[in-house]
């Protein structure tokens, strides 16, 4: 990964039928990084990817590639390739011919094609699959052929549009590791689109969190998870307890009727703020050490830990703990000052919607474009 930018989006905006899908987006993508566009359906992430790929032209703004303006260039003249959501393999060609497709267009000599195709199939762990028909392959295998085909032309950037969406959970996890390996081995830039925050966190160098056509936050997985910039990001990436609070003074915040030390400063005195606390940052402790206490409502086994709901006055805390807690019993929790994330009162519009399905519908419409 270098520090030079290979792609720059400048003031990109795009509407469909009068609906603004992308509103003046700016983004720099460094050469060699694994960058993920993350957001709920309908947030504009796929539109952004398609603009980079050349399948859509933006209404305003420029797409720069290696310093050159490629905004109006058709896909076939761009130095980047795409792995499509539903693979888009040519059903009338076998694996070899699918991978060789781009090379034949380039009129590469046959022996070079042969070498390149086996190299690619080696890379995606499908050696010896040359003669197979693509329709007879499993989902994961088709996925890998699609990657091999896209990589065969040796692009500088690979665009991936939710490539693991159609796969089994276990297989998806395996492919995540494999994709990361392929990216590092081929040493090229990956621009990855997903709505799955776990996928985004584990694979990416940089995560771009999007909502409603705008970029909410850009950062490393750690920074977007640990220091979410607003309530939407906090809620979308991982679970969180969200409360309204008041900043009494620097390093002192009040929420749910109590005052807590915190690490934030610079707010106005008594400014209303938003508090976000991760469930795993609440630790079960003996009564004398706790600074939150309540009654256990439910305790659900989640595998690695239990999800415990704790009622304190009117607020229902969600706590993740490796320890079981009996519903109905009192419980004491300790909250460290630096686990209290404070942000300006957020615009409700940007929060993750209560009815996420409206977003889904918007997404479904977007797909068709």
């Amino acid at each position, binding site marked *: 990964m270098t520090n030079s930018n290979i792609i720059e989006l400048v003031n990109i905006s795009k509407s469909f039928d009068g609906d603004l899908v992308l509103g003046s987006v700016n983004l720099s993508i460094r050469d060699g990084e694994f960058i993920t566009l993350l957001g709920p359906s309908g947030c504009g992430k796929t539109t952004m990817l398609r603009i980079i*790929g050349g*399948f859509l032209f933006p209404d305003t703004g420029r797409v720069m590639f290696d310093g050159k303006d490629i905004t109006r260039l058709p896909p*076939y003249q761009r130095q980047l390739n*795409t792995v499509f959501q539903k693979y*888009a393999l*040519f059903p009338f060609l076998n694996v070899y011919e699918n991978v060789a*497709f781009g090379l034949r267009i380039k009129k590469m000599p046959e022996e070079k094609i042969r070498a390149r195709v086996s190299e690619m199939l080696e890379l995606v762990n499908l050696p010896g699959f040359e003669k197979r028909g693509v329709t007879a392959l499993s989902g994961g295998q088709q996925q890998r052929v699609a990657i091999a*085909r896209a990589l065969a032309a040796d692009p500088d950037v690979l665009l991936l549009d939710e490539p693991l969406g159609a796969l089994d959970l276990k297989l998806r996890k395996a492919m995540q590791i494999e994709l990361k390996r392929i990216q590092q081995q081929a040493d090229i830039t990956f621009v990855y689109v997903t709505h799955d925050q776990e996928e985004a966190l584990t694979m990416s160098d940089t995560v771009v969190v999007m909502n409603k056509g705008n970029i909410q936050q850009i950062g490393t997985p750690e920074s977007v998870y640990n220091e979410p910039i607003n309530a939407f990001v906090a809620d979308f990436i991982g679970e969180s307890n969200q409360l309204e609070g008041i900043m009494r003074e620097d390093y002192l915040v009040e929420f749910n009727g109590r005052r807590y030390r915190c690490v934030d400063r610079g707010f106005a005195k008594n400014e209303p703020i938003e508090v976000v606390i991760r469930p795993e940052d609440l630790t079960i402790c003996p009564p004398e050490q706790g600074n939150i206490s309540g009654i256990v409502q439910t305790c659900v086994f989640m595998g690695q830990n239990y999800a415990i709901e704790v009622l304190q006055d009117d607020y229902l805390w969600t706590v993740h703990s490796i320890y079981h807690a009996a519903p109905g019993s009192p419980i004491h929790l300790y909250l460290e000052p630096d686990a209290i994330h404070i942000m300006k009162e957020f615009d409700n519009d940007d929060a993750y919607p209560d009815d996420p399905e409206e977003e889904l519908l918007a997404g479904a419409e977007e797909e068709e474009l």
Partner: protein
Amino acid sequence: MRGARKAAYPYAVYAFTFFTAPLLLILFYSLTRRGPGGVAFTLDHFARFFDFSNPQYMKVLWNSFRIAFYATALCLLLGFPAAYVLANLRPRWRNFFSMLFILPMWMNFLLRTYAWMALLETNGIVNTLLQKIGLPALQLMYTERAVVLGMVYNFLPFMILPIYNMLIKLDNSLLEAADDLGAAPWQTFVRVTLPLTRPAIFSGINMVFMPSVTTFVISRLLGGTSTPLIGDLIEKQFKLVDDKGFGSAMAVIIMVFILAFVALNGRNEGEEMVF
């Protein structure tokens, strides 16, 4: 489902019998002769057709295939682009134009052919226009060319429809994938669109070639006596000569050729029969 299926069987059997009986009858006629001793088996009708010392019937068959081939080729040449343009129109226009293509099909095809004749007649529209601009009138009717045009006119929708139906179902992401892999528009067309629509093209060829080979109305109306086709011969046996045996034999022969053609065509098509 079991119950519903059972109730449907008698109707299906009835429909089937109703449908195949005439075919079996033709087969029966073609293999028998009415003699003094009643009905007897014979291969004479076929022998008469394949008489190599007097290949007049085979010549007609050959002509029928040749003309049908021209008509099919022309239909493909016009039909594919038409279907392609139609499929790429915005949905509203698409419906309007496909309606215009389908509309004449609902009209009886003889009536359509009469209208077509009015255009080509010696004193018809085309010649009137030609003369108006000072050109000599052309002999358009009663030529082989008129027959081919008549076939194209009548059977073109059968070429357009399967191709159009395939094109609108085409997976756009495959075209995008080709574009993405560096294929210019015409390369995408040749390397992706064409292979994907092959089954529809074969279907269209079948649907145009078949009726072109067997038609006799078009050739009689537009071709006069210039080029008798096998269909004319068969009709004459039934209607004028009343030699049902020989007419049936010719019908069987042409069916066998058509079946062979479809089988050959179908082999390339694989599973996806479009019609």
